């Protein structure tokens, strides 16, 4: 578990009683988390300008997407006089570490939790947090069911996939599409995986064939996006969202069907791996890779032509807004509300592509880079 406390509290010594209770409550939890709990519990008495305790619980810290959330949340916490505690799972799907972090937030007396959940197993702990009066904000992905969180701050992942798909269909200009679908996992259902995959197919004008599963679309038929044309789905392969996984998946897809000309990649690392595979096969010029993320490095790949387009998301914005909302709410402000017509607060998505295409709203990579994350 990665834990840090952005604001070391100076009031620790004054609150020995609370500390004693905190220590007893924290028995069984990690020492590091308890160490910071005593300090921020002082904020529970604050109604006005005092320090507000907020926990940011991320999926992992192995991904620059979540690292960017941590960074922007810390910056916002400093502005809002928030005592921020950051925790993260050890790997995607690590719910136990997240549950421990939620329990720590409750015993610490935090005012709210920002969480990118690793799965449904954290739901019960989040309910406990809500009952204890904490405001729960889901970041990046809504929990299942969405009502587990008070509100979700997210990118519309389906919309991000859709923008890529619409661009892909328009760029094909009526030519047949042979599509490789490079997904995230094959062993667990994660909404971001389904939403991006389905969004891409919908954007191309292909019915995903299921609301809850990948790979249920008709394997060939007609796409209706752009000028429309015939399509074949050559493969669905898991990549684990990593470069080596993306490469192996793409190599196997190419062996199965050497005519692939469109690649959907769940994220930039998977797209990067796909590019490496295509380059090794001497096919990088004839295949268009569509990625989602919008990191600064990924946008450079759009400029260089490695990616045909990249749907941009704003993880840092989600985290910063989340910190700000809880700080305001704790000081008597009103609850945040969802974006009109959606079940969550949409922090937006945009499509970055080097070549603008008629009828589509596209940002140039340099425009998009003004709000990019990572390095």
């Amino acid at each position, binding site marked *: 578990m990665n834990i840090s406390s952005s604001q070391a509290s100076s009031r620790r010594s004054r609150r020995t009683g609370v500390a004693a209770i905190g220590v007893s409550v924290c028995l069984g939890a990690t020492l590091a988390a308890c160490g910071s709990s005593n300090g921020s519990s002082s904020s529970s008495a604050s109604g006005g300008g005092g320090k507000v305790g907020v926990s940011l619980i991320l999926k992992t810290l*192995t*991904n*620059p997407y979540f690292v960017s959330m941590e960074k922007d949340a810390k910056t916002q916490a400093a502005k809002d006089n928030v005592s921020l505690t950051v925790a993260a799972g050890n790997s995607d799907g690590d719910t136990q570490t997240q549950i421990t972090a939620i329990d720590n937030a409750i015993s610490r007396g935090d005012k709210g939790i920002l969480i990118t959940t690793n799965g449904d197993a954290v739901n019960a702990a989040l309910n406990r947090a809500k009952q204890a009066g904490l405001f729960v904000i889901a970041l990046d992905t809504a929990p299942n069911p969405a009502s587990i969180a008070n509100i979700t701050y997210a990118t519309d992942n389906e919309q991000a996939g859709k923008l890529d798909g619409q661009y892909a269909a328009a760029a094909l200009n009526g030519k047949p599409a042979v599509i490789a679908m490079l997904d995230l996992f094959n062993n667990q259902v994660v909404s971001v995986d389904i939403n991006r995959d389905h969004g891409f197919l919908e954007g191309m004008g292909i019915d995903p064939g299921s609301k809850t599963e990948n*790979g249920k679309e008709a394997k060939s038929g007609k796409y209706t996006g752009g000028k429309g044309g015939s399509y074949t789905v050559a493969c669905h392969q898991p990549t684990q969202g*990593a*470069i*080596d996984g993306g490469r192996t998946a793409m190599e196997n897809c190419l062996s199965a069907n050497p005519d692939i000309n469109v690649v959907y990649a769940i994220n930039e*690392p998977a797209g*990067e791996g796909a590019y*490496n595979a295509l380059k090794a096969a001497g096919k990088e010029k004839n295949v268009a890779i569509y990625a989602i993320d919008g990191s600064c490095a990924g946008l450079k790949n759009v400029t260089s032509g490695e990616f045909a387009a990249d749907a941009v998301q704003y993880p840092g914005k989600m985290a910063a807004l989340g910190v700000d909302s809880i700080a305001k709410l704790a000081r008597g402000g009103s609850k945040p509300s969802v974006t009109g017509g959606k079940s969550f607060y949409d922090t937006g998505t945009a499509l970055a592509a080097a070549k603008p295409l008629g009828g589509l709203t596209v940002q140039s990579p340099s425009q998009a880079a003004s709000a990019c994350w990572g390095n």
Partner: protein
Amino acid sequence: MTTHVDPQATPAPAEELLNRPATPAQRIHSVLHRQPALSPAIVLVLAAVVFSLVNDRFYALQNLSLVIQQVAVIGSLAVGQTVIILTAGIDLSIGAVMVLASLLMSKLVADNHWPGGVALLAGAVVAIAAQALNGLLVTKIKLPPFIVTLGTLSIFTAITLIYAKGQTIALQPGNILMWTANTVSLGQLNLTNGVLIMIALYAVIGYALRYTAWGRHLYAVGDDVEAARLAGISVNRVLLSAYMVGGFAIAVGAWILVGRVGGGDPNSGLNANLQSITAVVIGGTSLFGGRGVVLGSLIGALIVQVFVNGLALAGIDPNYQVLAVGILVIAAVSVDQWIRSVKS
């Protein structure tokens, strides 16, 4: 296997036992016992034949080239894992050390502008040093290898994440670190330099295990540590050397990984620990030490990749790849148990 023994029966004379003709099962058993790489080799050939019949693209040399390329990273790690498992140890930190080394190499070149060769050397030094730490904890503090490497798995992963901040590092082609990705054509087979280095690694370590005193000592320690000690073998030195040879194999794996990834990525290679152990086990090396050969591990890694590739080509749901690997592991360990249990 249980045999019914009649207490009334007169024991057969020793010569009669020795001269009794062996049943076919006993003969097979005896051959398999002498050649630990044979049973995985049979599985590999059978799998290749079946997949070739199912899909005519499987046998294409282009596709077989890919399978060998895909196996180069895990194959290299499996050499190190084999040497450690032969001492009746196990290394859960092997993938974490590889990711650390690959990121260090990439970052030294990309951010600190070190020459590629020096960065490569630095990566190798760190990998060998990390494994020396594992070895010292096993030999000096007498901790079980499982516990030591479980701990260092977390330590090395954390160091990597702190060092890399979750970022990937892209390298320019032409750097020596990317040399492993360059393609070499052998007739119709398109291999990479990485594959050739991996094969060289197998040749060197395989030779050392079979023909040097170090190799024989390693088997002796793995088979019966007390007997080895009584025979005058410096057990601790052999164990420490096994981990450090493992570190060298990890460095080779890290170099090949950098070529495949095109730089450093903290998320790539995270599953390598278990994949390397899987390759070793399927390859016929006993988890109880003292029995096995590195060639078996290469075959084991190839079997896994042939299944993954073959099932993907056949358009079968990726979940079945995972299922197949699980069945292979159980089958391999069962065969190992059978070979050990029956008298040879």
